[in-house]
């Protein structure tokens, strides 16, 4: 992958076969004396040669100021048939492969009626590592993608809020990141989002389309170019709609999630989560308490930065509050933080912990520095920061189930700033938009 990184072009690279991780010493010895798959030369001979051969003539790194994509920007296609345009969008890498709604000018204009924002307003900006470009995108761009995803204009403020985070749902990692998009506030009901039965199932238009719009935005922003920006070896099919759902605030006996992030209950907001592990148990808690069950499940997923996100049915929260004594979300998170224990050896021998947390331990950051000095069998509390444990309430109260994930909270964004402007005419008696009373005309008799 580094071959495509403009920062590294001038460095002399030698490749071993892949993978390196998880191999025996004997297998690694064979890599060392074996051949570089790119050159066919012996790896060890190449190492010696690179260290002793003059480097004159090696290619210089390109200047990032000159890295702008020279591909011609094409903002209009056609006229052409539906079939050809569907194929063209797919071939150009603008879709997930599922059919899209073709973004005609009329459809995009209709989408723009869903917001009061100027179509030319810049929604966000990000940097593309593969091309060295700064990308700015405006409201009209997001409207095109929203049409493609099948959105109605009333969904558009939610999609704009997602876009305003500048977060891609697809990550340029060899691992298989998952993402989750949760909507809070009054807009959930206004646009018919599902937070009850089957909220994560493919049955609700708003959930399906808004989640997919995030993926299509990410694809159109360039995050789906295999071996340039997309490296996930297996990929993750949760990214087709990013676990998009609303929170069941009506049945949640704790505060809504967005309120825990500083929003008012009357605000509408989106929240984004990201991670890998997803534990979707078939059973509930017939023989152990909910807290004990979660304790077991989360202990199996050593977290980064103490992060976990647990998506619970409202029945679970009611039980935790009424029968297990957790009056607030914070009470429960504090209990989880203190109760979940795993051996230090299990923690440090987890690959991503060694890669990303061990450097903090070496720097002296606590509690990692202390944990690093412990014997393998000493117990540690890997979810040491209860503020990084998130509880989201979703479900239809048919079973007290939950999903335990290692997802971390990324960010939230307000939706209301993207709403369509209110009508200039106040409608206080509920008669606005109703047909006029029948008019009685004079008889000509």
């Amino acid at each position, binding site marked *: 992958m580094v071959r495509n990184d403009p920062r590294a072009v001038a460095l002399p690279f030698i490749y071993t076969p892949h993978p390196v991780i998880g191999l025996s010493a004997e297998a690694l010895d064979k890599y060392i004396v074996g051949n570089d798959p790119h050159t066919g030369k012996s790896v060890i001979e190449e190492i010696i040669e690179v260290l002793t051969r003059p480097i004159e003539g090696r290619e210089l790194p390109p200047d990032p*100021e000159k890295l702008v994509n020279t591909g011609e920007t094409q903002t209009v296609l056609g006229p052409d048939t539906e079939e050809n345009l569907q194929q063209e969008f797919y071939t150009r890498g603008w879709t997930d492969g599922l059919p899209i709604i073709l973004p005609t000018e009329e459809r995009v204009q209709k989408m723009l009626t869903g917001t009061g924002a100027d179509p030319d307003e810049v929604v966000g900006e990000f940097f593309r590592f593969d091309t060295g470009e700064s990308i700015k995108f405006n409201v009209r761009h997001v409207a095109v993608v929203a049409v493609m995803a099948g959105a109605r204009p009333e969904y558009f403020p939610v999609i704009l809020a997602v876009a305003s985070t500048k977060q891609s749902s697809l990550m340029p990692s060899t691992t298989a990141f998952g993402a989750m998009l949760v909507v809070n506030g009054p807009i959930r009901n206004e646009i018919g989002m599902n937070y009850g039965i089957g909220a994560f199932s493919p049955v609700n238009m708003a959930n399906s389309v808004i989640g997919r719009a995030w993926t299509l935005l990410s694809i159109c922003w360039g995050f789906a170019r295999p071996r340039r920006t997309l490296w996930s070896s297996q990929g993750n099919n949760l990214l087709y709609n990013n676990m998009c759902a609303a929170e069941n605030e009506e049945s949640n006996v704790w505060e809504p999630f967005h309120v825990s992030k500083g929003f008012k209950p009357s605000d509408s907001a989106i929240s984004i989560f990201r991670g890998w592990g997803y534990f979707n148990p078939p059973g509930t808690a017939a023989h152990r308490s909910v807290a004990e069950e979660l304790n077991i499940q989360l202990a199996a997923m050593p977290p980064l930065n103490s992060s976990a996100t647990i998506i619970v049915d409202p029945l679970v929260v009611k039980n935790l509050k009424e029968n297990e004594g957790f009056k607030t979300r914070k009470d429960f998170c504090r209990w989880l933080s203190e109760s979940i224990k795993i051996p230090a050896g299990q923690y440090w021998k987890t690959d991503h912990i060694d890669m990303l947390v061990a450097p903090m331990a070496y720097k002296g950051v606590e509690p990692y520095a202390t944990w690093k000095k412990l014997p393998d069998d000493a117990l540690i509390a890997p979810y040491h920061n209860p503020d990084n444990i998130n509880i989201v309430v979703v479900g239809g109260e048919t079973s007290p189930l939950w999903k335990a994930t290692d997802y971390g909270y990324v960010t939230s964004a307000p939706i209301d700033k993207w709403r369509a402007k209110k009508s200039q005419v106040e409608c206080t008696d509920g008669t606005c938009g109703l047909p006029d009373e029948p008019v009685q005309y004079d008889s000509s008799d």
Partner: protein
Amino acid sequence: MTIEIRYTVLTPETGIQRSPGKFPPGAGALAPATSSFARRLDTLENKTIYLVDTGFGGGSKFMIELQKWFAEHMPNVKTIRKRKPGNVFMDDNNELWEEIKEKGDAVVFGVAG
């Protein structure tokens, strides 16, 4: 008679402004120009080579085996194994690189996953 409908559509390149960008802070810097690379060695004999593990899984074990190879086949080469500072994606400080400049003659840096 069949009527074939043809559409003219906007593309998702609509509303996109491209301009030259800069790598975000902390996301790494440009590789040095070729002229700033350390001069290559004439021989590895009696030289000190740092074997620096990036922190990616598997990298440390690979460097252990590489160190064994040098010990067995080129015993006059001194190897020092280290893990790079900071996490795998960025450095915290330059201490290791300064140490290598002072005490080392060459670096082998790797290996990813």
